[in-house]
């Protein structure tokens, strides 16, 4: 799966002969910012560490997505941080955030928002116990 991803990501993103606008057929042969239509400032409330997960509705939309969105859905079958999606997709953070924000809009993924069921102090205490046990 990772090999496949590398192949996809390397299949045009770094190709200097690419004009960045041929996105009709496979959608692969485009530059990162062409993937997002130049939008880079949406979804800024999705943090680097925010957990992204495919929703039940994802499979219904899957056929309609281009490869990069489909790859995101594949990666986030279990929750994965935005930054890890970016790294595994080999696409810059800002671009990944836009793709994820679009998927959120479609209802295909959810961003986990931790419930505030505990104080920050008690969270830090748990973290401290956790690192001590490493």
């Amino acid at each position, binding site marked *: 799966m990772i090999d496949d991803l590398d192949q996809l990501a390397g299949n045009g993103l770094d190709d200097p002969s690419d004009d960045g606008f041929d996105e009709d057929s496979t959608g692969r042969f485009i530059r*990162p910012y062409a993937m997002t239509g130049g939008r880079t400032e949406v979804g800024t409330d999705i*943090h*680097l*560490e*925010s*957990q992204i*997960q*495919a*929703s*039940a*509705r*994802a*499979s*219904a939309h899957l056929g309609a997505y281009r490869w990069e969105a489909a790859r995101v859905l594949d990666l986030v079958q279990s*929750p994965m*941080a935005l*930054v*890890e999606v*970016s*790294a*595994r997709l080999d696409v*810059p*953070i*800002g671009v990944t955030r836009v793709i994820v924000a679009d998927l959120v809009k479609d*209802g295909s993924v*959810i*961003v*986990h*928002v*931790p*419930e505030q*069921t505990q104080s*920050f*102090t008690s*969270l*830090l*205490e*748990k*973290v*401290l*116990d*956790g*690192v*001590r*046990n*490493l």
Partner: protein
Amino acid sequence: MAFATSDPTAGTARRNKIPVKIVVAGGFGAGKSTFVGSISEIEPLRSEAVMTTASDQLDDLTHTATKATTTVAMDFGRIALTEEITLYLFGTPGQERFHFMWNELSRGAIGAVVLADTRRLGDCFPAIDYFEARNVPFVVAVNPFDGVRTHPIATIREAVQVPESVPMLFCDARARLDVKLALVTVVEHALNRQRAGARV
């Protein structure tokens, strides 16, 4: 559609997964990636951020508004601390011109580990200044590259000019136990400050 019942989350955040993060900063070659790699439970990954910045005035003889893009790479790792809490470690370049990245990294961070290289102590000043100015709890971890802890901590503390309230320790970034101790120290420091009400 066939899989509609395989995912019970159905658009709501069901499980209370809590990601937390610690920033690992320091000058070029101070051992940030090594530090992350020593304790991460996954092979450290690299992600990139592309920023458009106004170009340096000195490069701009025509005084026209030109822009340059900078790509900043960060290495990160993760560790599942409990069923619900996952710790992310971000190693990030320490140069001042990358502050835009630090803003994002520091947002919501528990704290920071500033790695100091005894051969180039000055390289960690930007990171120290940054975290001090933004009230982010940090510790200074001195990576003894020569393998010999020739300078006492007190001397290094004086050289990097951090107050006694900032924990300092030696930390061989290759040694898992040293890295663990640095993490314990920064979380303890953050917790102490939290309890003292220093961080609102």
